[in-house]
């Protein structure tokens, strides 16, 4: 098993969308989480990697050899799709065994919808491990969304692939079963990673991507917006777009100028505030005089600090450790859950403030 190198890969569609000039290393034995807004090209990238789409240009290399000319089968890729897409005329067992039946060229079994005897034990064993052994004789239309997705997982895992692609497998699982399915999925991916395979996991669950991923790739408009350690990408987004993507509740943004740089902190002057903000650098290399954007996630706003006030409280409800606040910020009324940073009774809280330690620093101009 070796890592996969994506080199300057492009695939554009006539109606728009696709990916453009992506270069990326997908390390073996590591979980690469692919995140991005809908339509950013995540599924397109997976389909090109799997050999289901031919790229317009670029190369895909494994063990220093191009695999672009290989068909889907010869790339030895396995994939779990967004929806299970089990073949409705086959039983669950036959659906799970389908990849092996096709690879064995056992078309009689495929046509009859049966599982070859030599593969029966393998199917049973996998079904037991995914807790779907009681479903083997059922038809897909007799399964719930979660059960069907488990079967599609089994279908992907029945082959020993060199690359595993998981394309939002949780999207077709209903809310009640999602937590259990997610736990199972993570365990399965860990098993696959132990074999040293590269795994790409597309997800909309950013918290999950942050907690389980070894590498995070943020795609936006078909381009890689940022890659790196998930924690770093989340805490130090390089662009406002990435910062906004990781802050679904919203961001407050202020332009500033770097006044002083120390080993681990920078002092930033922002016109909106009376005094400069001292902010952790988080490995960002900035020079004095550089223009920056300071972004604050709404979930990090605090109620009633004396410094760095950005708005006034209109109404407020105590939620225990947080406060539900309607506040006037930058001439807009916003609803947010603010941090309680004082012991004052909540009736007396009147201001909303940012906390410098939570600031996201984004270079306002590209750093050369």
């Amino acid at each position: 098993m070796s890592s996969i190198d994506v080199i300057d890969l492009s695939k554009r569609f006539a109606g728009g969308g696709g990916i453009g000039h992506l270069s990326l290393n997908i390390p073996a034995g590591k979980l690469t989480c692919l995140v991005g807004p809908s339509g950013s090209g995540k599924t397109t990238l997976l389909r090109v990697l799997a050999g289901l789409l031919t790229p317009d240009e670029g190369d895909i290399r494994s063990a220093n050899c191009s695999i672009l000319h290989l068909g889907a089968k010869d790339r030895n890729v396995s994939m779990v799709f967004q929806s299970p897409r089990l073949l409705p005329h086959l039983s669950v067992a036959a659906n799970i065994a389908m990849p092996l039946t096709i690879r064995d060229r056992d078309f009689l079994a495929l046509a009859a919808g049966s599982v070859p005897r030599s593969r029966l034990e393998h199917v049973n064993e996998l079904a037991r491990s995914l807790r779907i052994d009681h479903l083997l004789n059922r038809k897909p239309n007799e399964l719930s969304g979660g059960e069907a997705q488990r079967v599609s997982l089994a279908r992907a895992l029945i082959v020993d692939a060199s690359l595993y692609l998981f394309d939002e497998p949780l999207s077709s699982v209903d809310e009640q079963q999602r937590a259990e399915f997610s736990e199972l999925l993570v365990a399965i991916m860990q098993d696959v990673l132990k074999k040293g395979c590269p795994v790409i996991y597309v997800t909309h669950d950013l918290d999950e991507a942050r907690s389980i991923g070894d590498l995070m790739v943020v795609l936006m408009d078909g381009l890689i917006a940022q890659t790196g350690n998930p924690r770093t990408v989340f805490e130090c987004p390089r662009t406002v777009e990435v910062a906004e993507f990781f802050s679904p509740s919203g961001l407050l943004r202020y332009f500033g100028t770097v006044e002083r740089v120390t080993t681990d902190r920078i002092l930033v002057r922002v016109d909106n505030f009376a005094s400069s903000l001292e902010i952790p650098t988080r490995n960002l290399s900035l020079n004095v005089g550089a223009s920056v954007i300071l972004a604050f996630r709404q979930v990090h706003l605090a109620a009633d600090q004396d410094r760095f006030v950005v708005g006034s409280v209109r109404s407020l409800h105590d939620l225990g450790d947080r406060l539900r606040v309607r506040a006037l910020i930058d001439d807009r009324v916003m609803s947010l859950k603010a941090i309680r940073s004082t012991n004052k009774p909540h009736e007396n809280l009147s201001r909303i403030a940012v906390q410098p330690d939570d600031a996201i620093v984004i270079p306002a101009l590209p750093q050369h």
Partner: protein
Amino acid sequence: MSKGAIDLLRFARRCAASFLLVIFAAPVLIAVIVAFSPPQSVFGGSGQLVGVPRGFTLQNFATAWERTDAGHSVFVSFTLSAIIGLLVAMWGMAIISSVLGLPTRGRSSILSMLIAVRILPPICLCTPIFVAGALFGLAPATLFVISMSVLLVPLFSWLLGPAVDAFAEEWLDIPRLFGLGSFGSTLFVFMPLALGVFIMVTAAVAVTAWNEGFFSSALGVQTIIPAIPSLVSHRGTDWGAVMALGLISASPGIVLTALIGLYRLGRD
């Protein structure tokens, strides 16, 4: 089956639908106008346009009734239409749904199309073909074969449409991922999934064929479509009566559509 082939099939279906719309809509409108206009006021005996419709009459229906034993024909046609409609409504859709797992939209489309097949061919395709053929002295059996042949290709393309639309790309991608080629995908994935539609189309065409042609030959009773040539003579065609007969032949289907539509509305 490759995605290109599926796109081509979808395109063919759209072409077929446009063709059928044009070929069906115009004759339906003409048939309704001519059937309720005074005899020979719109078309002359040899088919030339002689005037614009003026007035309203049921005379054409009375003529058609007297000259073609239409009461008997309507009874036969209605009975057969009822059988077809009930079979489609009660069994056909259940079979298709269970085999294909089609979404509601696909099921509704297929049901509507099967009903349309029952209503539209007699009035829109068979009627003009039978009339035109009779002018050239062709026998009903020959005309029947021609009309069925003309129907089959666009019908198959059209009826397969919902199945193709409901066909997810991943159903082809998954076998491709593991090494099944285009031919294999067509044979082992597409065909089993489309089997229900194939069976239903074949059954619909066979029953229509029986209803409109073979039934009259085998049992010696005259259904409406084969009765049309009796309105054509060497002195000319009574177009008003022909169109009235066409409307009568379509009426059982229209009634059934309305009933099934009400039933479906109640269910949805």
